[in-house]
């Protein structure tokens, strides 16, 4: 069975989401999910001026310190992420690569002045994780608004789509996972 290594990085109060996320991804994608603690200092990715963490640096560290045999890595964090030219990102992945990362920071209702909704936050996290993993499988953004690979640049956009791939995207994922 193909496997996925789930790597918690600065998860703080969201550490409790690691196991349920692993279970959900295993069920949705048919992957063996293994949790593996980070062995690097993620503070190196912190940008003092922006008060955010640079995902390009985090992904590089993730790859550098990961088990070389792990085919795919998904970092999970509660800190705010950015890529240098954009104000923020929910997550990031190397297209067709090995490493991806997702953050719960901008998925929580509290950030938008709304009452906490942990279940909704978890659903958003699952969708963003499946989305970033889709990029690892070589998928680009899908034009079908209900497909999990639809591009979401704001949190409400995540709520509009499903946690699953459309038939076309699923076909490509299956081919990547060995023709199942």
């Amino acid at each position, binding site marked *: 069975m193909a496997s996925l290594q789930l790597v918690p990085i600065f998860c703080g109060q969201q550490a409790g989401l690691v196991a349920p996320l692993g279970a959900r991804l295993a069920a949705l994608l048919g992957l063996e999910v293994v949790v593996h603690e980070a062995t690097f200092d993620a503070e190196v990715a912190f940008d003092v001026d*922006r008060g955010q963490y*640079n995902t*390009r640096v985090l992904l590089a560290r993730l790859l550098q310190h990961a088990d070389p045999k792990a085919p795919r890595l998904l970092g999970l964090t509660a800190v705010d992420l*950015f*890529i*240098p*030219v*954009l*104000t*923020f*990102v929910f997550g*990031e*992945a*190397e*297209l067709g690569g090995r490493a991806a990362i997702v953050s719960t920071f901008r998925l929580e209702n509290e950030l938008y002045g709304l009452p906490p909704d942990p279940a909704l936050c978890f659903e958003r996290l699952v969708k963003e994780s499946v989305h970033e993993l889709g*990029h690892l499988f070589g998928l*680009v*953004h899908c*034009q079908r608004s209900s497909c999990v690979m639809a*591009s979401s*640049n*704001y949190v409400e956009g995540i709520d509009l789509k499903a946690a699953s791939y459309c038939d076309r995207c699923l076909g490509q994922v299956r081919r990547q996972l060995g023709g199942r």
Partner: protein
Amino acid sequence: MSQSTVSILVVDDEFSVRDSLTSWFKKDGYEVLAVESAAAALRALEARKYAVGVFDIKMPGIDGIELQERVHHLDPQMPVIMLTAFASVETAVRALKQGAFDYVTKPIDPDELSHLVRRALEQQRLRDENRQLRSTIDELTGADEAIVGDSPAMQRLQQLIRSVAKTEATVLIRGESGTGKELVARAIHAQSARRYFPLIPVNCGSLPEDLLESELFGHEKGAFTGARQRRKGRLEMADGGTLFLDEVGTIPRKMQVDLLRVLETHEFTRVGASRPSRSDFRVVCATNDDLRRAVAEGRFREDFLYRIDVFPIEVPPLRDRREDIPLLVRHFVDQFAMRMQKPVTEIAPEVMVMLQALDWPGNVRELSNTIERAMVVCRPPVLRGEDLALLRHAGGVAPAEPPRDSLAAVERRHVAAMLERTGWNITRAAELLEVDRVTVYNKIKKYGLAQK
């Protein structure tokens, strides 16, 4: 929908920006090339086209604004989004003035970036579509410019045009009214090495002598009452191109002397100027007059005739090439169907029989007018004989012109000239002729005048 065919050129001297934008755009399905300098971008653009450019403004060497300016010359259709770390109204205005599509400050909101790129692509798509539609319309209606006919007479004419177009020889196009002399002049210009410069037509018959002088030579400010600004003349406007003197037989004798000198030296003096100017133009003239008879009658200078009659081209009257009538009819029906948005696709056989039986004293122009009027009354999709029959009774065939030197002929020419000059503004023409509007209408009816 895959966007794999859409390519984006990213230019930024910072690796992290190139790296993140490449990753971001690739996930949106775009093909991306990210380079570190304007020089590398220009090299890339020499090799192929990109749908959108994303350029950083502040770069060592050639900056983003200058790069945008150069790219605008290479590929004016390419939308460019400018990026900068520091918002400044001056820079934004400068970039937009030079044709940048938009301007954003780093770091960019992800939603804004996606929208910007989509909008730029949409604008480009619409522009391409618009260009394509325009060229289709030009192809169909611009058939205006085509010389239609494959009769032996027309084949000879086309051969003459091809031969003379490549030379610098002065051409005299002779033919009856309505045979398409101007089309021949345009074809000569279009096939000549001067085609990228203008073809400047001068309708010599429509201008009174004093106006013709200033029209041809231009005038200085204050040269005469009303000359409030310096004005370029047609000779100057034709620099590099072709000067088309239509109705050359109507040029007054005094003006012929001045023009003869200009045609020989290409030097002329603006009205009110003290020093001569030069202009490099080729001359094509047209006339429906018998200029040799005009010379014999003293109306036209012999030396001027020899100067313009270097390469004569005869445009045959329509009655001498009746076999071209079906082709011409098809051509005009298609043209007016497009212009009138009337889906006329068939022409009844009796139409061709009727039209080929006529003598067409007004030649192709008269045939075109007849078809235009028939198209107004016809019921699509067929143009029938009945559509023409009514029109012929209503005056579809032009009334015969009076003898050229009769008072009526002079009046006809003068009324027609005033109407052409005012763009068929009846009120203005009436003012110039110092008659009332009803009289102008009566003259139009009497002489069967029609707007060209």
